[in-house]
C-alpha cells in the first residue's frame, strides 16, 4: 500500500546509508594495495605494505599479545559466564543480579578503565598482559552470561529431569544433556568475547602498565595513528576487517544451525 515514490525514496536512502557505511572501509582496503601508500596518488598495485607489516616486529608482537589476552580472557569468561548464566536461570529472576551483570556492559569503558587501574595500583599489583586479561574478563563475563542466558531461556528443563529419571547423575546429566544442548550458545558467546577482547582499546591502554611487552594490537594501532600515519595501517586495517567479517559469518552460520 506504500505509494511507489515513497518506497523508492526510502530504498535510495537505505542505499546511501550502505554507501556511507562501506566507502571508508573500501577506501582503506584499496589504499592498502596502493604502492604509494597515499590516498591521493595511485602508483600501482602492490602488496609491499603487507610485506612491511610482516617484517614489523612491534606489530607482530602486539598482535601476538592481543591473541594471548583474547584467548585467556575468553577461556576465563566463558567458563565463569556460563556458570553464572546457569545459576541465574535457575529459580526466580532477581533484578539485582540482572543489574549487576548488565553493569559491565553499560558502564562507559573509560570509567571501568580508571576504576581497574586504581584498583590494581592500590593492590600494588604489577601491570602487564595479565592485568589486561583480568580486566577484559570483567565485561566478557557479562556478555557471555547474557548470550548464554538467552539460549537457556529456550531450554526445555524437563530433559534434565528426564535424564535423572533414567538414572544419570547430576554430572553425567550436565555432560551428556545440558552441555551439548547449550553448546552452540556457549560457542557463540565465546566468539563474541574473543572479538570484544581483540578489539578493546581503552581498558587495555590503562591497565597494561608501562612495560614494553604488554602492548596490545589496538594499542599499537592507536600509537601508529596518533603519532604519524603510515601506510602500513591500511594493510593492518584490511586484515582486521577481513578477519572480523569472517568471524561474523562464522557466528551467523552457528546461529542458523542452532535455530
Amino acid at each position: 500500500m506504500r505509494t511507489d515514490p515513497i518506497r523508492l525514496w526510502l530504498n535510495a536512502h537505505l542505499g546511501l546509508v550502505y554507501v556511507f557505511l562501506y566507502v571508508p572501509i573500501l577506501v582503506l582496503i584499496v589504499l592498502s594495495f596502493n604502492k604509494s601508500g597515499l590516498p591521493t596518488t595511485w602508483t600501482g598495485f602492490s602488496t609491499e605494505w603487507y610485506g612491511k607489516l610482516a617484517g614489523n616486529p612491534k606489530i607482530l608482537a602486539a598482535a601476538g599479545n592481543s591473541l594471548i589476552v583474547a584467548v585467556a580472557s575468553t577461556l576465563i569468561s566463558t567458563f565463569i559466564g556460563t556458570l553464572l548464566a546457569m545459576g541465574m536461570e535457575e529459580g526466580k529472576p532477581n533484578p539485582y543480579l540482572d543489574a549487576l551483570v548488565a553493569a559491565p556492559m553499560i558502564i562507559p569503558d573509560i570509567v571501568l578503565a580508571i576504576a581497574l587501574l586504581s584498583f590494581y595500583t592500590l593492590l600494588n599489583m604489577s601491570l602487564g598482559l595479565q592485568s589486561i586479561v583480568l580486566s577484559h574478563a570483567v565485561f566478557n563475563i557479562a556478555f557471555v552470561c547474557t548470550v548464554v542466558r538467552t539460549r537457556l531461556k529456550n531450554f526445555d528443563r524437563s530433559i534434565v529431569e528426564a535424564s535423572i529419571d533414567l538414572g544419570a547423575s547430576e554430572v553425567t546429566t550436565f555432560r551428556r544433556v545440558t552441555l551439548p544442548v547449550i553448546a552452540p550458545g556457549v560457542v557463540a558467546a565465546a566468539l563474541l568475547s574473543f572479538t570484544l577482547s581483540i578489539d578493546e582499546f581503552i581498558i587495555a591502554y590503562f591497565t597494561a602498565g608501562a612495560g614494553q611487552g604488554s602492548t596490545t594490537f589496538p594499542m599499537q594501532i592507536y600509537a601508529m595513528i596518533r603519532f604519524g600515519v603510515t601506510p602500513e595501517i591500511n594493510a593492518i586495517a584490511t586484515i582486521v576487517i577481513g578477519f572480523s567479517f569472517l568471524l561474523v559469518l562464522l557466528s551467523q552460520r552457528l546461529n542458523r544451525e542452532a535455530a
Partner: protein
Amino acid sequence: MTRSLLEIQGITKRFGPVTAVDKLSLTVNDGEFFAILGPSGCGKTTLLRVVAGFETPDEGRVVLAGADITELKANRRPVNLMFQSYALFPHMSVAGNVAYGLEMEGVRGAELGRRVDEALALVRMSDYARRKPGQLSGGQKQRVALARALVKRPKVLLLDEPLGALDRKLREQMQIELKKLQQDSGIAFVVVTHDQEEALTLADRIALLDRGRIVQLDTPRALYDRPASRFAADFIGLMNFVEGTANGTGFTVKNIGTLPAPAGSGSLLAIRPERVRLSDQAESGAIAGQIEGAAFLGQDVIAHVAVPGLERPIIARLAAGHALAARLARGQNVWLSWQADQAVLLQD
C-alpha cells in the same frame, strides 16, 4: 491375587502456605493400570513427582515392592516417568534417546543394541531409529518417550498427562495402544490426568483427587455409576442434579412431587443423562417439561428439558436410533422418568 506394588503412605507436601498433597494414601497393585484424576491444582502432578523422586514429601513414605524409597534419589529409583512434554533429548537420535537409560545402567554393546531394537519395535518406531526428535510428529515423539522409559523395565511407569497434546483421533488411537502396551508388558502404569474420559477408558482403578485429598477411589464403572460426592458426580461425565429431600422411598422436590430414587438419605439427587427416559406421551409418575434445545452429536442426541420448578434444565441423552431423536422440536411437551435404582443420592 492382587499384590500391592506401590504404597503411598500419608504423603503430605507443602509449598509455602499451600498444601498441595494432604496426608494422601493409596496403593497401586502389580500389573495394574491406575489413574490419578482431578482438576488442575488438585495435587496430582505433585504426587507424581514425589513418587518419581523430584519432590521430597514433608510427611509420609513411599514404599515400592516392600522397600521404602522415600529417601532414594530420583536417578536410583526403579520408577520411570513419561513427561508431559516428552522431554526427548534434542541432540540425540531416537535410538540414542532410548539407549540412554540403559547406558546409565551399564548396558553395552550387543545387548544394548538388542534391547533398544526391541523397545522401538514395541512402539512401532523401528524405522525412525536414526531420526532426531525435531523431525518427529507429536504422536511419534510420545512413542519414543514411552520406549525410552519402558526399555528400563521399571517397576512402575508414571505418565504425566500422556494424551493431552494429541488431537482427537490420535488420542483415541493412543488410548488403545497404551492399554495394550500396559497389558503386554505387565508393568504397572500410573497415569495422571485431568481428562476424565481418558481415565475412564484406560484405568483399572481411579483415584479422584480434590485439593490434595482423595475424594473417591474406585473402578471406572463404580465411579461413574456410584459417585460418592457431588464433586465426583460433577467431575465425571455429565450429570443432572436436583435438590430436595430423600424420604426413604423417593425424592421429594418442592412444587414438583416425588421423583424416583433409591432408599437412603440425601439432599441431592443425581441422574445420568443417558438414564433419563424421554417420552412424548404422558406417563404416570413422569415429570412434565418442554424441550428447550436439542443438539445432534452424531451417535447421540442431547436434549435440554426445562421443567417448571427446577432451576436448571434436565439433560437427557438419546441414542440416534431413538424414536424421538429426529422429532424433537423446541417447546415440545415431553415427559421424563427413570428407574429409582439408577439414580444416586448425595449430600450437598
